[in-house]
């Protein structure tokens, strides 16, 4: 197992993503951040905090559970029983720029599911995708708008994102 990002590097990436999101988004538009359970949830909270700090206004933050939208629920290759959890988005997504946040973008299947789940909640003005690790191996035509670390990890390796809030430390490993 090899550490590819330590806590300093994770922090730096999140600051970089924050400023790129701000410079890309016209000032008069509403931004909201939505994290994909479960590591995306934590990253979204951090991003919303740093965006709020830099913009001087509250950037709302929500959590999306994509279980019901996964494409492997009834598939023989599906992973063992994902647990359905709550989606917690306490604001209207209509007409907002939604920054969708996940820890790793890999096959693109989670992002696809997340977009479908989001559209059932309303009609955002735009959906942007922000990820901490951009891993090669896409199976769907989906790319991140804001990507942190680029990883070319082999298909049989595991990229594991640990975050203080959920795992006790900030660290990304590959093994």
């Amino acid at each position, binding site marked *: 197992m090899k550490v590819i990002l330590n806590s300093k590097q994770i922090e730096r990436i999140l600051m970089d993503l924050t400023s790129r999101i701000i410079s890309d988004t016209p000032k008069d538009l509403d931004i909201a951040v939505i994290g994909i359970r*479960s590591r995306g949830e934590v990253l979204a909270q951090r991003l919303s905090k740093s965006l709020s700090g830099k913009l001087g206004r509250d950037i709302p933050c929500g959590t999306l*559970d994509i*279980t*019901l*939208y996964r494409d492997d*629920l*009834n*598939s*023989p290759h*599906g992973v*063992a*029983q994902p*647990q*359905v*959890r*709550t*989606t917690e988005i306490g604001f209207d997504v209509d007409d907002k720029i939604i920054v969708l946040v996940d820890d790793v973008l890999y096959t693109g299947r989670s992002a696809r599911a997340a977009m*479908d*789940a989001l*559209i*059932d*909640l*309303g009609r955002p003005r735009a959906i942007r995708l922000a990820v901490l690790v951009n891993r090669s191996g896409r199976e769907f035509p989906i790319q991140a708008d804001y990507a942190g670390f680029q990883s070319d990890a082999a298909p049989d390796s595991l990229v594991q994102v640990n975050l203080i*809030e*959920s795992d006790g430390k900030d660290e990304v490993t590959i093994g």
Partner: protein
Amino acid sequence: MALIRKSRQLKWHRKHLLGLRELSSDEITYILDTACGFEQISTRSVKKAPPLRGKVVVNLFFEDSTRTRNSFALAANRLSADIIEFTKKDSSVSKGETLLDTAKNLEAMGIDIVVIRHSAGGAAKFLSRNINASVVNAGDGFCEHPTQGLLDVYTIRKIKGSLEGLKIAIVGDIAHSRVARSDMWAMTKLGAEVTFVGPPTLMPSQVSQLPVNVSYSLDEVIEEVDVVNMLRIQFERLGGNPFPSIREYSHYFGLTVERMKRAKKDILVMHPGPINRGLEIESEVADGSNSVILNQVTNGLAVRMAVLFLVNQASAQKAIS
């Protein structure tokens, strides 16, 4: 986060939901936790999610029902399943077809989940042993009505936080009530203390072997309970004269405004419906601020979505192994 990890350890493996007696408290909690995730589907702009897309659910109801049948139908619709409605009245059952033949014929059309209500205890279990589809019990005889039990504990847990240590009275026609039985299993497994309240003639004969207290007086328990669940007198099932008159029954076992004055301020008043207003419960109480009767109906939808989702998942995984 710790909580999430704990419930993740459990793997749901049941292809059928036949009753709550056979479930562990962890399994019941798993269903309730799953149901939380389905609640918001009913409150958003698109009231539909895709997990049962392409699956077929049959509502196989050999007894009358409005609430449960509609609730299952809506639950199936919201999960994007197709649903076939089957009622005894307009089917070949009136031409003498047996339960198994009816089910086998439906199965031959390629159904995935059968939701069955039947007057014979054990009907759901019988079906589950004889067909390949998942079977969900929507009420069998006087035995169980598991989704009602689940939605009742879901409603209580949502308001009280937990069932641990709560005192719950289930009042009325216990003998003929599958709701009372499913409630009892779910509530006691989650740590509540349950008391069956009613006239001796409406108590099940083997009540002393059940994990409940028994009381023949509502006045005796009303002051100390956190939840009271009022059952309907099932006149259609009653033989003989279990009580002298309806008035006398109301006098001793009805939930009246007067009795509510002696109850805890935050007592939850529940009823599985349909209500006989003025008989087992006064209108002011049924519509009062302690009543969660309509919350039960709303929560029932989320619970049934969770159950349909879980049995289908278990079925898909069994197909793999």
